């Protein structure tokens, strides 16, 4: 555990970047430091590996004060990923990744082998090994940065806005990769970002800092959304707090109807049989069971359904796995007001109305605390 105890950073000109910050960063999880510019998040991160000296207070790693160790030993035990990756442009990718192992005395072959293994881990094609940084895209360079930080298998990973410099599509991919990596590796990650959505998506615990380096709230993201500590946090969280919080409620409890579903080659009897009282539409699927669209029962021609005249089915959600937010979104996207639940292969499992989703939301609120991890 990383204990930050009443830490203050004061600069010679009087600016206080971090003001009596106290945090306990739990092991084997992602803790995000988030806040507007000037809130001291990067300064705090850089104090952990002593890139910045503390003015007051202590930071201890597993009980040991970090200032009592030789600084380079400390740094070599932590991975450090920065914006723009900071790759060594004069070295090949594989040599970049092998930097810390080589520093620790590993042989060239062993270090390179480890580097190649890591490249695969972070999703980089092995053919890039002998390339130089200038030949890689921004997203690829960032992955190299992460691989480089992981090379010596440090227990702690410090990440300073690592995904801010890439475009949103690439960023989402990198975020998903990080979550997957974390599931495999279980590192203690301290992650700095100015993007509250990134914080909510990635963080197991989120520390919101305000300008001037003070802690505003330290809580799991779901709690942040449901109970912001004050007006600043609420404001920082932004609009649609309630809806975003729904990401933390699973759709597993939804009662999916399986009756109003017909295949595209259904006969008139089957259509009649499937028409459910209280449900004005039927979902038409293809022969494989995948959704095609909605239709009123009367408008269906038995045996030869005209797929062009079907109503849009919106976006299906992964039944049982996706969140209530995804289910709600699906139901809003279809003009019928019904959402379609599918399995891993994309085949329809069942359908649910907006009203039913609404009821599920109400009972979820009334029930015990929601999951601490965003479901989807």
């Amino acid at each position, binding site marked *: 555990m990383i204990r930050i105890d009443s830490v203050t950073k004061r600069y010679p000109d009087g600016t206080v970047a971090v003001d009596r910050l106290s945090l306990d960063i739990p092991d084997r999880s992602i803790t995000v430091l988030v806040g507007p510019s000037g809130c001291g998040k990067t300064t705090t991160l850089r104090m952990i*590996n002593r*890139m910045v000296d503390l003015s007051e207070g202590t930071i201890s790693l597993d009980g040991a004060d970090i200032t009592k160790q030789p*600084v*380079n*030993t*400390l*740094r*070599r*035990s*932590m991975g*450090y990923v*920065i*914006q*723009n*990756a*900071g*790759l*060594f*442009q*004069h*070295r*090949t990718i594989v040599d970049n990744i092998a*930097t*810390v192992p080589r*520093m620790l005395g590993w042989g060239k072959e062993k270090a390179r082998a480890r580097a190649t293994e890591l490249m695969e881990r972070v999703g980089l094609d092995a053919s890039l090994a002998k390339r*130089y*940084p*200038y030949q890689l895209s921004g997203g690829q360079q960032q992955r190299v*940065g992460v691989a*480089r930080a992981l090379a010596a298998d440090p227990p702690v990973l*410090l990440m300073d806005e690592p995904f801010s410099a890439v475009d949103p599509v690439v960023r989402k991919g990198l975020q998903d990769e990080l979550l997957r990596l974390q599931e495999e590796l279980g590192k203690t990650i301290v992650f700095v970002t100015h993007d509250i959505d990134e914080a909510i998506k990635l963080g197991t615990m989120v520390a919101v800092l305000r300008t001037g380096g003070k802690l505003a709230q330290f809580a799991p993201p779901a709690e942040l959304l449901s109970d912001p500590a004050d007006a600043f946090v609420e404001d920082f969280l932004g609009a649609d707090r309630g809806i975003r919080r729904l990401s933390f409620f699973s759709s597993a409890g939804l009662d999916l109807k399986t009756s109003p579903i017909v295949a595209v080659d259904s006969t008139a009897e089957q259509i009649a049989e499937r028409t459910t009282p209280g449900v004005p539409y039927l979902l038409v699927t293809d022969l494989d069971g995948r959704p095609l669209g909605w239709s009123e029962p009367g408008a269906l021609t038995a045996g030869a359904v005209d797929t062009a005249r079907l109503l849009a089915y919106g976006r299906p959600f992964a039944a049982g796995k996706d969140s209530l937010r995804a289910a709600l979104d699906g139901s809003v996207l279809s003009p019928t007001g019904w959402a379609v639940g599918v399995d891993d292969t994309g085949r329809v499992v069942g359908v649910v109305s907006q009203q039913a989703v609404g009821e599920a939301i109400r009972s979820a609120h009334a029930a015990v605390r929601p999951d601490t991890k965003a479901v989807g």
Partner: protein
Amino acid sequence: MNVLHYINLFFSDNTHWHGYDGIPTRLREHVQYSLIALAVAAAIGLPIGLLTGHTGRGGNTLSLIATAARALPSFGLLVLMFVLIGFGLVPVMIPLVVLAVPPILVTTYEAMRSVDPSPVDAARGMGMNETNILFQVELPVALPLILSGLRSAAIQIVSTATIAAYVSLGGLGRYIIDGLYQRNYEKVVGGATLVAGMALVTLALFWGIARLAVSPGVRRSN
């Protein structure tokens, strides 16, 4: 007047290719003077430039020293040294070194300062010590500019080493000085051509060194 004519005359005269005043001898002497001066200037300028460039401190002082050194007239310095120290290699080396240190010093400093701070920060965060950061992270990237400073100094040295002849030493300057006093323009032009040729060879040498020493990752991204 035909410069080319003189060049032709000079190089086709057989006697110019032999003996203590022959082209090979003078060339060798000139190369010797130039190499020594460059080595000494680099030994002074490189370490200081690398260190101040790495720490970022002392840039102002460096500027001042470079300006002062440049202000010293090479020729005047040569005569002064000769009068004070007498005949020998040292009175010639001093003005040459004083001449060559500023470009090496200033260019090395600026090359180091212009290195992208991101990799340096990353390296520090990884736990690299300062010496390793200087030599493994900053130097390889600053190398092209540093080489250009060395190259510039080398060319100046090659050209100025001709003054060695004024204080009775050898080198290609011998042809120029002798040619002046003997009113033998053939020699003057021949000597100048040889110096210019040597400068071109120096350029080619540095181009080759750059190709060998500069990492492809740095070369291409420039």
